[in-house]
């Protein structure tokens, strides 16, 4: 396509009247268009004017999108043309596979896919999309649009066997490769807690146990990982579980060094050797536990916040001091 002459030089486009962009005043931040883009968009405006929807429109809009993937009007017109021509939406998806990788960061690429999948109304197509997304995330494991698209697919088609059932194993695999991938942690929260109850997950007590075990293991592996601690807090908050139930697990992470332990407690894995201790997030968790317990525990919370403010998390000094002030005020008789 790159070697093709301008549309204005192609005999097969001679019936289209190109329309230049209307500009009668000095523009704000005008773009110095390339000749290729100017020519293509002149013909596009001409096409929109006559409302032509034909195979060559698909070719033209593809060309424009390659030059400017954020050209939302070209995307819009392309989608309507596909529907009008009853084109194969599967073929369009395959073309989009290449686009998605090339223009990963462009919102429109993912929005277009969403429209295609909505029109296809096929759970099988949605399942194939999950596989495609997994491949796309290889290139950029935290791409926001890609993750949003996956969450939309799952919620929109909502099929336990074909869609939801593979999510846990898949995210676990991602976390195995990068335990700090917050998008994967978020996704786990979404499908375990945020979007109904998965098939096989009906026993919520058991699920809570499973999730706590999983998270504790991941924290043991990399204690200073806010994604895992935020997940832990999210689970406890969502299920109304008191923080104190985690105390036996959290304590060793608040020590200044890895303690020698004679009896191995499988429920409460200890920090891995060489872990950077004390862990700021564990200290924060401990202080919050004391605050939740209230009463005579408040002074312990204050002591812990002081450690954070003055020694281990000085950037947030003012925050920890604020927490101290609030807790003391609240505990006054």
């Amino acid at each position: 396509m790159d070697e093709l002459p301008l549309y204005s030089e192609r005999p097969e486009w001679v019936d289209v009247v190109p329309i230049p962009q209307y500009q009668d005043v000095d523009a704000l931040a005008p773009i110095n268009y390339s000749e290729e883009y100017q020519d293509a968009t002149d013909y596009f405006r001409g096409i929109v004017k006559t409302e032509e929807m034909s195979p060559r429109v698909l070719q033209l809009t593809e060309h424009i999108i390659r030059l400017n993937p954020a050209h939302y009007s070209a995307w819009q017109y392309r989608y309507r043309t596909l529907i009008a021509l009853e084109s194969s939406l599967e073929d369009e998806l395959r073309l989009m596979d290449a686009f998605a990788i090339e223009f990963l960061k462009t919102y429109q690429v993912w929005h277009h896919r969403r429209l295609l999948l909505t029109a296809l109304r096929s759970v099988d197509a949605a399942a194939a999309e999950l596989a495609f997304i997994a491949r796309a995330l290889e290139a950029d494991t935290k791409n926001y649009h890609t993750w949003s698209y996956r969450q939309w697919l799952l919620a929109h088609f909502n099929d336990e066997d074909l869609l939801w059932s593979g999510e846990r194993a898949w995210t676990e695999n991602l976390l195995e490769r990068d335990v700090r991938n917050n998008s994967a942690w978020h996704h786990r929260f979404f499908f375990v807690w945020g979007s109904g109850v998965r098939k096989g997950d009906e026993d919520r007590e058991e699920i809570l146990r499973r999730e706590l075990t999983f998270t504790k293991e991941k924290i043991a592996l990399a204690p200073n990982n806010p994604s895992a601690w935020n997940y832990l807090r999210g689970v406890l908050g969502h299920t109304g579980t008191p923080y104190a139930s985690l105390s036996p697990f959290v304590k060793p992470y608040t020590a200044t060094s890895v303690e020698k332990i004679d009896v191995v407690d499988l429920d409460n894995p200890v920090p891995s050797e060489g872990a950077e201790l004390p862990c700021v997030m564990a200290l924060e968790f401990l202080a919050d536990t004391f605050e939740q317990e209230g009463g005579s525990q408040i002074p312990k919370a204050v002591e812990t916040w002081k450690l954070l403010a003055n020694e281990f998390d000085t950037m947030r000094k003012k925050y920890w001091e604020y927490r101290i002030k609030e807790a003391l005020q609240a505990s006054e008789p």
Partner: protein
Amino acid sequence: MSEAPPLPSLARNSHIKHCKLCLSGLPSSQVEMDSSRAAVGFYCLGALDLLGAKITDADRAAWRNWLWAQQTRGKYGTGFKPSTYMTPGNDSDYSEYDTPHLIMTYTAMLSLAVLRDDFARLDRPGILHLIRACQREDGSFSALPVGGEADLRTVYCAFVISSLLDDWSGMDVDSAIAYVRRCESHEGGYGQTPFGEALGGTTYCAVACLELAPSTAASPRETRMSPSHRERTIRWLLHNQTASGGFCGRTNKAADACYCFWCGAALSILGAADQVDSAALARFLADCQFKFGGIAKAPSERSDPYHTYLSLAALAIYPPPAADETWKLPSLNVLWNATTETARWARKHIPASN
């Protein structure tokens, strides 16, 4: 604590030059801005406003004229389009592919306030009509009346436009608020859409919306965010300030200049501004200054108007302690994202009641 090196100056003149250069024209490599030029204009003009740059009468008149030329009327109501990139001629009504755009309407209205326009040409009922046409069943707003992205960014723009007009008759406030709340994630931040991962930019949009909308019978303003949710959001936002001094937009990501505004402004709305380490924040942004002008997303990256404006806006909220004169910036209206002076002008000239 070890002695920190003194903060370098804020290179005001080169930042002004960068923005003026972008206003005068963008290279062909910036072609992706074709469909969002009104927003680029807003970042440039907003930065000039914060820096107190001189704007000549000729430029002021030309820019106002261009912005008004983007106001367009048609069957879905009136609003501003990103540019004339889809405009075939001086026709009276827009086509389905050249409709007004909510984000562009928000940025164009603020840009005109920066330029101290009298807003005599603003089609107020038409804009309310557009907002109505963009609201969807789930309470959110699509960027265009014919579709397009619908997320917290577009919801925020619909809220600010209503607030600027001082007229909320263009939307169902309760369903919009319900949508905003559905975007809250387990971390305490808000995702771009329901189920989305907590993100700094959309967390700003969410807390600004909850503050901007007037009380309704179903949703009095004070009860929109429970104390525990508020604390959780503040906690998440503060934890986004990284060791570099800058804020990241998501947990475990690197700091980025724009999130210094998004997270910092959200904290300011939540009443937690005094808990931010403003000295570290300024040090990070000082490092993001590009040697040829403008501010980049991170040290040793290239600058752009978006990061330039948002960095300056962050510094307007968080002036560094004991810094030299160059760092002095005017105060900011954090909810609308404009200087207090510009916001005052907008408040005086935009509402229909005036």
